[in-house]
């Protein structure tokens, strides 16, 4: 069979593609081109139609763009369901994700043209801005997914999350015994440092990496200046607290990168569901008050 090796090659090539090509470059940017075509067609149509008195979502072209936009939004939001059912082949999850990203970007053009550049304090503009929020958070997501994982990996320094916590626990145990000779005031500092939750701090502390009320750092600052003697208990506590602070620093850098990696989903997903609700209100209201 002359064709057998050829088939085998194709099959392997397909598998290799599926394995190693980024979803952004999937099938030589197939979906990027489709999205670009969709945008250019939409813009050309918009430019060619002379809508009186001003461009409007209620013209026939406006309805066309609106319908395309609505179907795109519904389909794009189905990724959440689709990704839980991985399959290979024509509609592999990678193809689906590739299309999700590029068609989602094209939606900026389709949606904006559908508005006719009319915005106001109403449910229609609400839907538009929710859509933009979803898309912009998605763009952010793609960028951080490309840029941050290597930072996350290098910050790990070959430690797992559990090991980071374990290291901290080890330091805590040593601190506990090292601090035994300290006086009341200094013991309190150590107690508050040990008692503070590793994950203390809210969203903004995580994103900014700023923990102004970190008890460990406060204890470090409040301990007397270094005496230089290695057998001084205060000096040992100080050394351990410095280690603890360093370990916390690594954990917090990890938290910061994780937060930057994950924050977009906390915008992307709720805004998507809110967008679907706003779209329902948008479409129903337009035809209710037709």
């Amino acid at each position, binding site marked *: 069979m002359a064709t057998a090796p050829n088939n085998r090659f194709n099959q392997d090539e397909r598998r290799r593609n599926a394995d190693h090509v980024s979803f952004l470059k999937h099938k030589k940017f197939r979906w990027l081109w489709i999205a670009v075509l969709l945008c250019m067609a939409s813009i050309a149509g918009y430019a060619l*139609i002379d809508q*009186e*008195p*001003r461009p*409007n*979502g*209620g013209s*026939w*072209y406006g*309805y*066309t763009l609106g319908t395309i936009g609505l179907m795109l939004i519904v389909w794009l939001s189905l990724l959440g369901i689709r990704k839980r059912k991985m399959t290979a082949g024509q509609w592999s999850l990678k193809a689906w994700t590739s299309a999700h990203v590029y068609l989602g970007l094209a939606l900026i053009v389709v949606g904006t043209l559908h508005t006719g550049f009319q915005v*106001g304090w*109403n*449910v*229609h503009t*609400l839907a538009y801005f929710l859509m933009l929020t979803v898309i912009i958070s998605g763009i952010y997501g793609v960028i951080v997914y490309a840029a941050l994982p290597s930072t996350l990996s290098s910050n790990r320094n*070959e*430690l797992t999350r*559990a*090991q*980071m*916590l*374990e*290291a*901290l626990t*080890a330091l805590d*145990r*040593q601190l506990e*015994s*090292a601090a035994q000779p300290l006086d009341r005031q200094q013991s309190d500092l150590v107690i508050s440092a040990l008692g503070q*939750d*590793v*994950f203390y*701090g809210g*969203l903004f502390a995580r994103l900014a990496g700023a923990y102004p009320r970190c008890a460990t750092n406060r204890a470090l600052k409040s301990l007397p200046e270094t005496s230089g003697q*290695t*057998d001084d208990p205060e000096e*040992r506590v100080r*050394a*351990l607290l410095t280690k603890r602070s360093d*370990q916390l620093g690594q954990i917090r850098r990890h938290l910061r990168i*994780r937060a930057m990696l*994950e924050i977009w*989903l906390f915008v992307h997903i*709720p*805004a*998507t*569901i*809110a967008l*679907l609700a*706003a779209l*329902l*209100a948008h479409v*129903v*209201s*337009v*035809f*209710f*008050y*037709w």
Partner: protein
Amino acid sequence: MAFLIRTIDFTAAGREIIRDRTVDQSEISIGRASENDIALPDLAVEQRHVRISDAGTGKLAIESVGGLGFGINGRTEMRAEIDPNVGTELSLGSSRLAISRDGDGPVQIVIKQVEKDEGAGDAIQGFALASTLPSKRLMAWGLAAAIIILLLSVPIITHLTRTPVENDPENLAAGQVRFDSTWSTGDLSMAHHDLEDNCEACHATPFVSVQDETCLTCHEELGDHAEMPRLAEGMAPFGTGDAIQWQIAETLGKEGPLGCVSCHSEHEGAVELKAASEQFCSDCHNGLDTRLTNVSFGNAADFGKKHPEFRPQFYAAHFDTELTRVSFDDSPVEQSGLIFPHDIHMDANSGVARMAISLGKYGAPLECSNCHEEEEDGYGFAPVEMESACESCHSLVFDRNGPNFRSLRHGDVDDLMADLASMDRGPRSAVVSGRGRPGQFARGGRYYSNFGRPMSAYIAINRALEPTGVCGECHIPTSTNGRRNLTPVNLPDRFLMRGHFTHEAHGDDVAECTDCHTADTSGEATDLLIPDLDSCRDCHQGETATKTEEITPSSCAMCHGYHTPTMPWRPDDHPNLPGNGGNDSVAAILGSLRR
């Protein structure tokens, strides 16, 4: 070198058991085998796992012997060097060996057992951002619910449960539907601004587009452009996109391209209602004759390039009671029943001018305004009154009565006859004061009276009504039932009825009267002095023309109105005009179709 090895165990009751022993040797070994210095009975630990030795300068070297690494400060290493004065924790299996030293004392190794993975799984969850934020699901449902309740359900429910109110333009009710202003796609036009918070005034029925009927509850007096079937027939065919949209829209209950809202689109911002563009008119009127074969007017698309010649209406024959519309192309001749050469009256060198100069009333050659008086509304001119405009020169004095002159009454031949018949039959001397004898009863005498037939009066009447008589100067004599009479004066108030024109806008700074009305060269009253299309085009070109000092781009709406196509001059108190009846309006037709 001495090592103090302290083992801490717990009894089943939780009590701590502490065992201390001191090993004095340079290095110690740790492993599962019992021959080790520290034996850890834990399968996760190698038989001989780690060796701790002095590394000089107070430091300790920890190295793996068995090939497996050991945990130190959370990290797995094969070899490490530590400062026991700072302390460190060595982790082997489930044992934690805290290594420390106080000054020059022995190296202390405290061995403790930890429970495996003490809540580690839960603790790791803390790394996820989800631990500091409400769940995505909660946020999603919260936002979606808020939107659906506030922006969708509240307006719908309040709309369905309201009590509909009849619209009254004089006294607009406040809107009853809550939060529906969030549905507004844009501000209403200025004229409808008061309805901004009363959406249901127009959007009366859910899922039914704004109906003409609703518009007409306020705009009841509007006329139609033409009858509905003719409008539909005359419309230009749609483009594909528009055709599909209308097909869908009409299936869903829109009133079609001839409904009010198809032209008067609202929510386009707080703008004034703008006149339609030229395109709007030319869509139908350019090539209208191909769709409507029985229209009386020509196609129009652009005033400068494609507009039919004007067809003024006037009286085309004496005694006509109906006006006739004739195109300027057909050399119209007006039969007003008057004889009046404009040119003689306007010539600054003619006898007329000399006469006018000699009269105190004028003092200069005649101007148009001496006879034609502009009306206050600025649109047209008042009818010329003979008494004020002509009589200064064309005197009707026929008799002298003492110091007074008697003038013939103007306007009615019967009055003329009566006046002339009353003319004194014989001249007499003035009644003087003082005593005197009556004198002879004879012509010229003080008491003389002519009791004979009034021959002189009849002669005077006949003479007056002759072409050369006093009436015949301006009027065309005729006879009615054998009696002398004059042809009635037939002048329309307005000649161009289909277009809107104001003289005020064409005042002195724009044009002289004679620029448009060629009165100065007109020798006959039969000349129709209304300007034709070409003379308007001297200044007015179509909408797309470039504006210059002379040229004014002029769209259709400058002269024509859509809702008053045939009657731009319709007076306000005269609503019953053709095409404006109670039951042929767009809404009425559609309403009857639906019923």
